[in-house]
C-alpha cells in the first residue's frame, strides 16, 4: 500500500490563458456555444512510499508543489491524498 497524490495546477484568474482561449474558440466553432470559458491546467500523479504518515506525505507534496510543480507567480495548486 502506497500513498497516491493527485496534484492539480491551475492558472490564477488574473493570468491570461491564450491556450484556453483558443480551445474555447474551437469549442464554440464546433457548436458548443454554451461554453463561456476554458482554462487549461496541469494534472500530476505522485506515488509515495506507504511507510510515510499522511501528514508527512502532505508536507512533502506541499513542498514539491511550491518548489517545482507550480510557479506561484501565475499558478495555484491543490492536491488530494489517498492510500492505494
Amino acid at each position, binding site marked *: 500500500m502506497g500513498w497516491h497524490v493527485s496534484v492539480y495546477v491551475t492558472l490564477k484568474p*488574473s*493570468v*491570461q490563458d*491564450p*491556450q484556453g482561449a*483558443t480551445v474555447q474558440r474551437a469549442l464554440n466553432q464546433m457548436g458548443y456555444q454554451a461554453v463561456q470559458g476554458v482554462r487549461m491546467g*496541469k494534472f500530476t500523479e505522485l506515488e509515495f512510499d506507504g511507510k510515510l504518515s499522511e501528514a508527512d506525505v502532505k508536507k512533502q507534496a506541499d513542498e514539491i508543489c511550491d518548489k*517545482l*510543480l507550480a*510557479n506561484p*507567480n*501565475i499558478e495555484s495548486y491543490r492536491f488530494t491524498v489517498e492510500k492505494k
Partner: protein
Amino acid sequence: MRFSVTVFPGSNCDHDCEYVIRDVMGQKVEMVWHKETDLRNPDCVVVPGGFSYGDYLRTGAIARFSPVMKSVADFAAKGGLVVGICNGFQILCEAGMLPGVLIRNKSLQFICKNVYIKVEQTDTPFTNACKPGQVLKIPIAHGEGNYFIDAEGLKKLKDNRQIVVRYCDPEGQVTPESNPNGSLDAIAGVCNEKRNVFGLMPHPDRSGEDVLGSHDGQVIWKSILAAKAGVA
C-alpha cells in the same frame, strides 16, 4: 573580460553566445556544463537560449535546479553580472533571480523574426553604452516570451525602473502592433533591483554582425565591457 556561458541539456544558443563574445567582441569565454559548480572565475555569466530539459513542465523550471544555477545565484548575490537570453531569461525568472514569468505567446505561435526594442534604462551594466530611448533591431525566437507579473509586481518594476527594454516599432513607438507576444506593458527585458542581473527575450547573441541582419546586439556586449572597465 572573462565570460562564462552555462550549458544545459537542450541549450542551443550557447555557441551563438560563445561566438559573439569570443570572435566578435574578442573576449575570453568558458563553457560551463550544468553539472559543474565551478564557474571558472568569470566577470559575467551568460545563461543562453534554447530548450533546456525540453521545456518540460514550464520553460526553465527544471534547469533552475541544475547544480550550476546554485553557483550562478551565489555569484549574483555577490554582485556578479548575470545576463539571461531567451530561455536564459526564463530560467532566471523561474529561479527567482528576476521578477515575473514568461508564459505562452498570445498567438500560441513560435515567433522567429527581427523585432525592435527600445532601451528604457541606460543606468544598468547591460545598457550603459546605449542612448536613452535608443531603438535596437534584434531577433526573437520563442514560443513562451509573453512576460507577466501581477499588478503589485509591475508597480514595483516601474518604481525601481527595472523595465530595461520594451518592444516598439522602428521609430521607437510602443504600439499594440509592435508587441509580438502579448507581453504585459510590452516588456522585453527586466533587471533585478540591484541591477546586476538582466534577462531579455530578444537575442543580442544573434545580432552582433551585419551578416546576421543586424549588429545592434553588440551594444549590449559593449555595455558589459564598459561596466567591467568601470566606465559606467
